[in-house]
């Protein structure tokens, strides 16, 4: 076959156009809905971030395999928050302005979520986060009702702490809180719940980050002779506090959030110091079929059990909820999707566990997506109520003794 110059130029032109076009167009003509995956791949959230990002991508693949949502194929653009509000804001700006994403999923740590939420509000897109700060529930952060939280609020953590303290028979609790919205949220939630049970908190101390020593703070708390100290703390400050407490020699029990009393804490201060410390973290909805689907996907991409990353189960749910709301709204407009989120996730409706099955069920009527991370019933603030696992540190290992529901 001979090629004329005109044919040749035509071919070159078509090839160039094809190369220039986004990948999707080459495969099929289905329109694209872009979603930003903004997870803490580096920084202090790094133990969780990469798994969170992978599960957003895996869930999007499952959605696309089931024919997409609202006639659209989901495309994920991933960025790293570095667990730092500054880096997260830059990344979110890039996702919104350059990539034109229509929703952002997966922010971790309250500082990051609180920094990103004004940007998503301005852009009129949905933000789904895994942070605890109470401020995320209400205006200005959630002024437009576009922010959804898949982690328990710090207030709910506090309530869980109160349940545990009662169950373990403590009588004289004291609190120590890192001075930020999340830390104080934990201990205030505890105080309110404990006083509602008729108890009394013997001492409350709020301390500052990055101090060379917390001995005076400890001295104040221990002077009140508590039988348990409930904290709203983080890993670095908890490391210092636990060492100084152990050296003080005064026996007392501790109840801490899981992000402080983690295997990293054991590594930093040693198993002796932490013997008997109670670590509380939200646990996934482990008996649900949706959890099984998540667990399979998680094992496939990471080789780890799904239990090793509670936040990855949350991000898996985020993508599913977003896609189901799109499908139910049959629209890619934020307002239309937002109006459907509670409808597809909250009760009344057939309980569904995977995207493909839910999409079918939607054709028949109302659905209620039961997530892998929790049953995912959003309240008026866009918050959910997961269950809490109670872990006792014994011989340097975190052993889960029981689960608390609030």
């Amino acid at each position, binding site marked *: 076959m001979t090629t004329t110059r005109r044919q040749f130029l035509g071919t070159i032109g078509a090839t160039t156009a094809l190369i220039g076009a986004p990948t999707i167009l080459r495969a099929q003509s289905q329109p694209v809905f872009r979603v930003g995956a903004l997870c803490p791949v580096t*920084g202090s959230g790094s133990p969780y971030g990469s798994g969170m990002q992978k599960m957003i991508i895996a869930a999007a693949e499952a959605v696309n395999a089931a024919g997409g949502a609202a006639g659209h194929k989901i495309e994920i653009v991933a960025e790293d928050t570095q667990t730092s509000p500054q880096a997260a804001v830059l990344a979110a700006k890039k996702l919104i302005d350059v990539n034109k994403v229509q929703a952002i999923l997966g922010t971790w740590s309250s500082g990051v979520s609180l920094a990103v939420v004004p940007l998503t509000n301005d852009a009129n897109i949905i933000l789904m986060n895994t942070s605890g700060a109470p401020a995320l529930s209400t205006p200005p952060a959630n002024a437009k009702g576009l922010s959804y939280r898949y982690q328990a609020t710090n207030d709910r953590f506090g309530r869980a702490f109160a349940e545990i303290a009662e169950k373990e028979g403590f009588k004289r609790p004291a609190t120590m809180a890192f001075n930020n919205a999340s830390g104080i949220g934990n201990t205030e939630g505890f105080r309110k719940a404990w006083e509602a049970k008729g108890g009394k908190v013997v001492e409350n101390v*709020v301390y500052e980050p990055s101090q*060379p020593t917390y001995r005076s703070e400890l001295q104040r708390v221990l002077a009140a002779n508590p039988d348990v100290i409930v904290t709203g703390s983080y890993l670095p400050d908890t490391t*210092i506090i636990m*060492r100084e407490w152990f*050296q003080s*020699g005064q026996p007392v029990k501790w109840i801490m959030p899981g992000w402080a009393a983690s295997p*990293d804490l054991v590594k930093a201060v040693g198993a*002796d110091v932490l013997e008997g410390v109670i670590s509380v973290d939200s646990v996934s909805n482990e008996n649900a079929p949706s959890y099984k689907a998540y667990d399979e996907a998680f094992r496939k991409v990471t080789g780890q059990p799904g239990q090793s990353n509670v936040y990855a189960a949350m991000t898996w749910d985020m993508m599913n909820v977003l896609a189901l709301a799109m499908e139910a709204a049959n629209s890619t407009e934020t307002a239309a999707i937002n109006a459907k989120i509670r409808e597809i996730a909250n009760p009344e409706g057939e309980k569904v566990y995977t995207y493909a099955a839910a999409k079918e069920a939607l054709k028949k009527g109302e659905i209620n997506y039961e997530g892998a991370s929790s049953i995912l019933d959003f309240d008026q603030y866009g918050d959910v109520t997961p269950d809490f696992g109670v872990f006792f540190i014994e011989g340097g290992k975190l052993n889960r003794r029981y689960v608390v529901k609030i």
Partner: protein
Amino acid sequence: MFYAQLLVNGIVQGLVIGLAALSITLVFGIARFPNAATGDFMTFGAFSALTAHQATGSILFGGLGAIVATGLVSLLAYWAVFRRLADRSVVALLVASIGIGFLLRAVLGVVFGHGQQVFQVPLTRPYVFNGIRVMPLDLQLAAVAALALALVFSLLYLTPIGRQMRAVADNRDLARVSGIRPGRVMVALWLVAGGVAGVAGMMLGIKTIVTPEFGWEMLLPAFTAAILGGIGSPVGAVAAGLILGVAQELSTPFVGFTYKIALAFIIMLAVLLLRPRGLFGQLEGAR
């Protein structure tokens, strides 16, 4: 008794601040600019001590590692940057030192990661004197600090190079016409300033945790102490560090733990308004 315990807590905190302030005040007195990289020199000292401690298992070698490595890094900063900017304004030098701080922090972050690291030192129960708890580790650290201070002060007041350093601090031009070579003085200054910051960093690191940002966060209290003590006065810096540490802890029953940090700044404000030359500073004449 309660206050006595707070006093003890404050002294330990004050020693760390005092050492950092000493490093700042030495540089300010002789090189004549506020060295904002001091905090990051501390961080560098903590990481070098950590590395030496992990390699040898000895705190002593950790301390030596901190002094030597940080002294050299500080000298390198002088040789590569501050020396070339010596004739520029204070602001140029200050900004350059902030830049060096950033660079150090970033390099440490890349090499060691941003996660926290700890010195694996055995945890011990305190000695109790009349109901006051004193940690054996704190006593050791106080001894290290005292040793470092003794070395620095004997260098400054008992050796020829120390006398030259003080002469340059007093009047640079007069020192030069008297035949003092500023080059040697500067080398000595940066080695000492780095070494002192390194020891402060190691002490802080042993007491707390080591991250690439932790020294930077100590910079403001250290500056406050340097100003309170009278800028350029080594004795003043150490004394002011102790005063700050103790005052912060003693104030906590009255103002709480959140505002004890503000106290440092109120003290600094008061000093600047009422006695700008600080506790031990000399009035600066027109130069």
